[in-house]
Each structure stands twice: as structure tokens, then as C-alpha cells.
């Protein structure tokens, strides 16, 4: 079978690979690049454990071919923390006990990050709708919703501080 040569940027780093067209994106990430933070859950586009960002849009990487991502910018859970500092959502899931077994957490955090980027102050209903493509079988979602609310509040507060600090310089 002929392979295709692809180039993808994952968490800011350029990668190249020769892949069979049938290779799924999630397997490219996990097996070829060793980024095993992205999980395979249901493998049927239901559970959302494999959620990653592809050119800024969340996708279920079990339902996308690696060749479809040729040329794309991909972000996975490994790209969320800034060095030793956890991403606000990683910290808030910890603080609020937004996970038990943790299997859904990488996908849940990637989907939550996309939601908050588009809607920095979501209502509880908007949060629940926003993560409706991500299944958690442990928590009952209550603490996941709290974690997303915490990260949203912290991110807004940080943005306001930044704006306040920038204002005098701009003026």
C-alpha cells in the first residue's frame, strides 16, 4: 500500500511522517509520535476521550484520518501546561476533583478549552451543552462543571488584570 508523506504541527513542533491513508489521527499521535495523553475510548466518535484541536477546532481524533490533518496545527493535552505550570483547566480539574479514573480527562479538558476560548463566561447549561460530546462514567459531571467554572473565572480575572496593566501603557 502506498503511503503519504504528511507534515503536521503538534503542540508547536513540526512533525513529518509517512503514513497509510487509513491511519487514524489518534494513532498517529499515540503510536507514531508517542503522545499517549490522547486516549482511545469508544473508537466510534461517541465518547470524546480522543478530542484534540485541529486548526483551532475540536475534533474526535478517532474519526479523522492522519492524512486529513496534513498541513494542520494540532494541539493535544501535552501542549496545555506551560512548563511546570498547569493550564488553568488542568489545575481546576485537580482542585475541584473533576476526575476520578481520569480516562476522559484529556478530551474533557481539550473540549473545555475550546468552549472557554469561544465563550469565556458560559452558563452551567452552556457548559453542559459544550461538553455533551464527552462522556465521563465516574464523576456524574458535577465536579467537571465546577472545574470549568473555576477555570473560566480565573481566566477572566487574569484577562482583566492584564487589560488593567496594559491600559496605562496604551494610554
Amino acid at each position, binding site marked *: *500500500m*502506498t503511503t*503519504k508523506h504528511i507534515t503536521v504541527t503538534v503542540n508547536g513542533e513540526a512533525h513529518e511522517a509517512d503514513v*497509510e*491513508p*487509513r491511519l*487514524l489521527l489518534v494513532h498517529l499521535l499515540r503510536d507514531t509520535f508517542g503522545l499517549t495523553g490522547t486516549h482511545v475510548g469508544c*473508537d*466510534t*466518535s*461517541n465518547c*470524546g476521550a480522543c*478530542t484534540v484541536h485541529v486548526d483551532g*477546532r*475540536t*475534533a*474526535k481524533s478517532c*474519526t*479523522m*484520518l492522519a*492524512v*486529513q490533518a*496534513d498541513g494542520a496545527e494540532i494541539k493535544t493535552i501535552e501542549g496545555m501546561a506551560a512548563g511546570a505550570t498547569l493550564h488553568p483547566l488542568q489545575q481546576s480539574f485537580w482542585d475541584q476533583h473533576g476526575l476520578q479514573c481520569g480516562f476522559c480527562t484529556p478530551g474533557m479538558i481539550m*473540549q473545555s478549552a*475550546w*468552549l472557554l476560548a469561544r465563550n469565556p463566561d458560559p452558563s452551567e447549561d452552556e457548559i453542559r*451543552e*459544550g461538553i*455533551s*460530546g*464527552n462522556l465521563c462514567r465516574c464523576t456524574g459531571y458535577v465536579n467537571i462543571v465546577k472545574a470549568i467554572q473555576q477555570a473560566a473565572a480565573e481566566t477572566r480575572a487574569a484577562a482583566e488584570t492584564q487589560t488593567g496593566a496594559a491600559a496605562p501603557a496604551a494610554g
Partner: protein
Amino acid sequence: MIPAAFDYVRPADIGEALRILKEREGEAKILAGGYSLLPLLKLRLAQPALLVDLQSVGGLDGITRTDDDIRIGGRATHARILEDDGLAAVLPIMRDAAAGIGDPQIRNWGTIGGSLAHADPAADWPAVVLALRASFVLRSADGERVVPARGFFLDPFQTGIEPAEILTEVRIPIPPARSGSAYQNLERRAGDFSTVGAAAALTLGADGRISEVGIGLTAVADAAFAATQAEDALRGATPGDELIREAAMAASRQSRPADDAHGPAEYKRAMVTEMTFRALRAALGRAMA
């Protein structure tokens, strides 16, 4: 689950895509968002020799308006349709339906043209385009034809599209003044396929009577269909709850649901009445607003 092996091309424009489809007729499948096709490939229910990915073909994902109709590119995602305020103002049914499709990730990639050409018998868009009397632009290397939605959906996953054609555009007539449209569906679980889906669009005349009406139903027959008997019962009549309840019952009588995991046929027929009633009442409310 791993698909069977296939080859993959990403044509740069529509001409190249159509030429490849013609050269490889019967062997090639079009890849749009992939959220219907990839599950089929992974289950090996489809084993095409070649996938033709349309992601680099420009001009297929816009939402534009002419004097007569709204034109939605075949590769417009459900998310794009959901978020278009101008579209929702003219055709609120489009936002109703888009909001209930799959989940946010699926809406980010899944496309209206892909859904219509795939023609899952429980998909939502077919009911909507039937109610709206939309038409589809089907392009091939040999030319272009415009076909009405009514008559397009034949059987499960079977439509009037030819193997070398691409559904490039959905055209929806701009409704006259005093029109309303709505989609109501029943889902057992968040993000599930509809157990029953009812789409309604109607226009009121100066005399307050229903001058035109369209009703499309999904998931309750081998293919989505127009509930023509209910439409006939409504056209020319003065709207009221009793009338639309009778029309909804006519829609139920025209449905042919199957017993399955979503419920027994008798239950689904009852839900056709209820969903059609709700869709008609919502459409009527919007027409009078």
C-alpha cells in the same frame, strides 16, 4: 477499528475533484467532514478504493443570499449553519436542527452536503429540506443539474445522486412575509440520532389562512419523506390547535416506523403526532410574530 486500505487524494479545486470522480467512477467516495463516512469505513461497511477529500476545494462552504433563495455550500458545517444569525432570522428551523445534531465536535466537522448525500434514514437535514422545498445543485464533470429535495431520498442511504456527482449547494427559497419554520425532534440521549424528527414551514395569507405549508419527517420510514396528507389538510385552512392536531395525526398515519432500539413502532407513531404538532405550533407562532 481500522478501515480497509484505500488511496487518498486532496484535489485543489472542484474541476480536479470532478475529473477524479469521473475517472474512478464507482471506486471513489467523497470525504467531507468524515463523521458519517469514517464510521462506515471503520466498520468496513464501506470499502472504497479511493477517498477524494474536498477540504482544499474552495467555494463550497459559504452561506449566501440571492433575491430568490438562500444558498448553502455543501461543505458548510453544522456549526457554521448553527452560528449564522442572518440565516436563523430568515429560517429559524436551520438553527433548530443544527443545534441538535451530534455534539459540538461533530458539528465542527460534519457538513450539510455530506449528511444529505449520505442520507441516513434518521438524519435531521433531510426532513428540514423537504419541509422547505429546497433543491440541490449536483455537479459532475459533464455539467450541473438542480434537483428538488422532494424525490431525492429514496431508501436508507440511497438518493438520486450519481456516483460521479458532488452535492455542491443547497438552495432554499426565501420565505414570503408571515412565514415561520421550526424543527422538533425526540432524542433518547444527548447527541443521539432522532427517534422521530419533524420539520414544519408555513406561510399565512392576508386572510389569516395557511397559504402554503411543508412538513418533513425523519427516522419514521425507510427514508425521510414529506407528510403530504398533513400538508393537504392544512393548506387553505384557518390555523388552530385542533386543526394542527388533526394534521399531525395525518402525518403519523403516513409514517412507516420500524420497531428498534429507539422504541416500538406504535410509540414512534404517537411521537410523530406529538413532534409534528409541536413543530407546526412553533412555526405558526413564528409566522405570527
